[in-house]
């Protein structure tokens, strides 16, 4: 009886710690972003978001007993290559012909190099010792969720972008072929994952997760679309229920005179 009670108290404590150090900060990240974007509390919203995001990232040390913190650990593990990729993309875009914020043309090459290095790091995280390890030196369970999802979604988007470039733009075939090449590269990496074992994950596990990732992507896209559809229906039905706006009264003589006077004051100048 006492043992059960102790166990229950310990479980409650562990849940409370998980709530304080992981779930509440996770909830506060979007709230801080919302405060920042709405302009109601710009700086404090940004500060709240950043602090809570850091708390989520380090949650595997603050509440090691919670399984959910593996997600925070994974986000921390991929943070460096993701930032490198963002830096590279920024350099590649703004090192080209842009009207504002143009960087030195060497930024394109350094950006390209950064993107290649970041993709290489991700591959090394799968096939070499850089694999994110969590609890008892086992692979982080969310790594095998993240990696195939990233590869599948990047393949899809690059393919769609390539078609959009050649379909909507003029004379964009060369660029579209390059983008299609990137799509094939990402598909090739996914295929390699299906054929060759990773450092701590087998090719069979990866193949299983290809299915789950496809289901994940499809489910998320459909779910988000349904939510947007529900939102549109709510707004549309409310707007439809509103009475039509009343017509305003025609302008009085004084108002017409005032408008004419303003118009006259702005007409003039030399004939060309």
């Amino acid at each position, binding site marked *: 009886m006492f043992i059960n009670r102790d166990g229950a108290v310990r479980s409650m404590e562990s849940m409370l710690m998980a709530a304080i150090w992981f*779930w509440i900060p*996770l909830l506060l990240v*979007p709230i801080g972003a*919302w405060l920042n974007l709405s302009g109601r509390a710009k700086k404090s919203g940004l500060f709240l978001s950043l602090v809570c995001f850091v708390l989520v990232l380090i949650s595997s040390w603050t509440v090691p007993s919670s399984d*959910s913190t593996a*997600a925070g650990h994974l*986000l921390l593990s991929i943070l460096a290559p*993701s930032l490198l*990729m963002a830096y590279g*993309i920024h350099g*590649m*875009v*703004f090192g*080209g*012909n842009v009207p504002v914020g143009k960087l030195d043309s060497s930024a*394109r090459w350094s950006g390209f190099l950064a993107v290649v290095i970041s993709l290489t790091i991700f591959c090394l995280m799968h096939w070499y010792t850089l694999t994110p390890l969590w609890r008892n030196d086992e692979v982080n369970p*969310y790594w095998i*969720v*993240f*990696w195939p*999802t*990233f590869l*599948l*979604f990047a393949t*899809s*988007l690059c*393919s*769609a972008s390539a*078609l*959009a*470039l050649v*379909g909507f733009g003029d004379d964009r075939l060369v*660029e*579209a072929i*390059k983008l299609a090449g*990137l799509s094939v590269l990402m*598909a090739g990496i996914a*295929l390699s994952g*299906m054929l060759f074992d990773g450092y701590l994950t087998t090719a069979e596990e990866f*193949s299983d997760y290809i*299915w*789950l990732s*496809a*289901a*994940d*992507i*499809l*489910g*998320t896209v459909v*779910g*988000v679309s*349904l*939510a*947007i559809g*529900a*939102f549109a*229906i*709510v707004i549309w*039905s*409310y707007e439809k229920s509103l009475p039509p706006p009343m017509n305003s009264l025609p302008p009085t003589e004084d108002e017409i005179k005032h408008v004419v006077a303003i118009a006259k004051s702005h007409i003039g100048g030399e004939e060309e």
Partner: protein
Amino acid sequence: MREPNASWKLLTLAAILPVLVLVTINISIGDSSHPESFKRFGNALLTSYVLMGVVLLGNLFFYADSRHRPFAPLVGMLVAIGIGVLISWALVSNDDLLLEANSGLRSQMLSNIVHLLVSTAAMLLAALLAFGATFAMITGRERRVLFEEEE
């Protein structure tokens, strides 16, 4: 201006095709479909619906600012989210429909949220790479002279 050659249907097909090719190769090398795929699809759908609904509920406050703070859209959106939560609760607690390797309803719900966090991070990073590469291609080529007067 010329008519665009691509339609939304073609773009959707272009997006789906590589995934279909990979899944087909996966089947052809001897791996049958994962038995938990439908559960993952259902959980991802319901979780993303509810969480996106909550985000859009937050957006309704901006909308309310320009409409004398009406109550009806808030109630409507809350009902829409509530339906999603109820369906999730019903399907997860009903036998083996959507319950994955978790001990119960609460742990499945929390696991779904964390799972969505990771898969959303993966999708955002993939979108950054794909759209970034697209813009890099667009800005990468030499500026074309459209009219002689420009020179």
